[in-house]
């Protein structure tokens, strides 16, 4: 591999890593900080992608669709937390797994009933629908670079929210000792409801932003679910920076693995996870 190809693959890896972070960021909140095993995370991603598809067709603009869809998903998150998840905080992880697995089936069936089983695509907005030529045969789609920029902004905002704001302080306090926080007069129920809704909205937002690149198809949520858990676990549960770092690591490992060791491409990411967990069972970064 010459230097130029290497640089392009490096770009591919970073860009893929950032995309992974975008998808995993919501799970960092719900699983990493609230401690709920949420297998339905991929379903929220799928809901977002299908919303982008339907709303963009309805409004004619992806940006309007993303704004509208995000609001709808916050409401969806609040409703789900109120109706289902709020009953699970004190319960066993197994019950969380059962509920969220059930949700996967429900969302898949709803998707099938409402939109059907066809593959759909979402048009790339005109503003970003061009490519930068890199070599005589290869060019790089600008929309991918735009997605990377969105991911970086999102990572910074999330970090600021969790580490630097009053709300973030309440969230972190609630995660380590719920009863004590309640005793101090903070409405922890409301805080959790907000965090959960934010997590759902982030997953859906990722689905919406990624829809023009990934297209929209049945079962798309299950594909991202496992890799999201890998990211959160490698990064260290509850750490935003950890998730970002782990995403980049996985993106690079996967990209270069596919180029240099194609026979092992399917397992490289998991081997990496196993090695990291042997070395640091708590993940790369500790809780912020």
């Amino acid at each position: 591999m010459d230097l130029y190809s290497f640089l392009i693959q490096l770009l591919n890896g970073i860009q893929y890593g950032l995309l992974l972070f975008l998808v995993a960021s919501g799970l960092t909140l719900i699983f990493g900080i609230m401690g709920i095993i949420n297998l339905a995370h991929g379903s929220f991603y799928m809901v977002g992608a299908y919303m982008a598809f339907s709303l963009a067709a309805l409004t004619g603009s992806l940006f309007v669709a993303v704004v509208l869809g995000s609001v709808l998903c916050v409401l969806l998150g609040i409703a789900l937390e109120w109706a289902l998840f709020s009953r699970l905080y004190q319960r066993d992880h197994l019950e969380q797994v059962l509920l969220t697995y059930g949700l996967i089936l429900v969302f898949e069936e709803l998707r099938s009933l409402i939109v059907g089983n066809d593959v759909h695509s979402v048009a790339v907005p005109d503003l970003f629908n061009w490519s930068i030529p890199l070599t005589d045969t290869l060019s790089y789609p600008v929309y991918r670079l735009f997605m990377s920029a969105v991911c970086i902004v999102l990572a910074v905002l999330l970090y600021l929210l969790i580490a630097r704001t009053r709300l973030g302080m309440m969230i972190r306090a609630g995660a380590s000792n719920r009863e004590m926080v309640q005793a101090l007069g903070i409405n922890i129920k409301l805080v959790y409801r907000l965090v959960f809704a934010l997590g759902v909205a982030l997953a859906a937002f990722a689905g919406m932003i990624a829809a023009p690149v990934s297209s929209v198809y049945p079962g798309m949520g299950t594909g991202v679910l496992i890799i999201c858990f890998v990211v959160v676990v490698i990064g260290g549960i509850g750490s935003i920076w950890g998730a970002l770092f782990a995403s980049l690591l996985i993106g690079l490992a996967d990209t270069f693995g596919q180029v240099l060791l194609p026979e092992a491409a399917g397992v490289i990411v998991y081997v990496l996870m196993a090695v990291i967990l042997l070395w640091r069972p708590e993940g790369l970064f500790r809780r912020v």
Partner: protein
Amino acid sequence: MDQDQTRRVGHGWRMTGTLAAALLAAAGLLQVAGQAQAQAQPKLKIGLMLPYTGTYAALGNSITNAFKLAIEENAGKVGGREIEYFVVDDESDPAKAPDNANKLVKRDNVDVLVGSVHSGVALAMAKVARDNNTLLIDPNAGANELTGALCAPNIFRTSFSNSQPGIAMGQVMAEQKKKTAVTLTWNYAAGTESVDGFKEAFEAGGGKVIKEMALPFPQVEFQPYLTEIAALKPDVVYVFFAGGGAVKFVKDYAAAGLGKTIPLVGAGFLTDGTLEAQGDAAQGLLTTLHYGDGLNNPKNNAFRAAYMKAYKTEPDVYAVQGYDAAQLLIAGMNAVKGDTAKRAELVKAMETAKLDSPRGPFALTRSHNPIQDIYLRKVEGKENKVIGVAVKNLTDPPRGCKL
């Protein structure tokens, strides 16, 4: 006391009356059943084991619709017998397939199994069919072994083998004097068998596959591979993808600017049922398959009109395969007048059947795979327009079949 007695007597009378009525009714039923038995053979039990949920749900529905259409066109009968369907959603899950197939065969006692879309599921069904000597018709799954090493007298296929579209495209590309090719697919049976077919035919025609790449199913992050392709600069790229992955690959290929310099070709599934989503990125792509749009033969026109009338939607290649599965069954059962006990004659009739399919007439190899024309198709607008026959009467070598 008196009253009590009367009541008891009355009760007794009523009991006797009810009993008599019941007996009469039962006798009547027996008589009716007896008549029915004398009039016709019992219903033929058909087990449809196909995906009705998940990624392949649309395919399962197409196959089922067209299968039932063919039977209705035959007055709702097969070999003179009425039909009873046993429908199972296999969820495209190979792990559940042995159980599902066994239930159909052992609990429901089906006379014939029809399925499935996913090759893993179909392989499990083939095992059950072999163990119980049940008739099996595969209306889609392309795994080469089904009509190769795992072939059996009771196993038939009305679709294609994975190699077939690959072999056809390999020949066409070699005829077009392409010298070098790169292949890319998901690393699973359907993909590797398709690519192997392409490689075999392309290299036999004087070309050279300079790199074979495969990524784990169902990953869709293609960027590293596109970078590789751009660096290798082959004359042509052959891929096998389907569904959501096919949409994404075709769009990524175009977005990376490769479409302008290195032609992309593939097995027909690359652009089948996905053109709406692929849009401009797919225009002009060449693919090979045993069916396409704009095939002008009377059977196809009649089939398309009938399907459209019955289901208010356009039929696809999967519908054609389902339709032919029913046609094959009808051909066999007519020859034995619905008597499934005459298995040898039934199999013989199915083996030698010349099916008038919407794709064009076809016969079967001795391993029960279609010998069929593979069409060369070009994407024009929302259609896979047939622009010619890539290979006439393509036979897939039945490797390892001892029939």
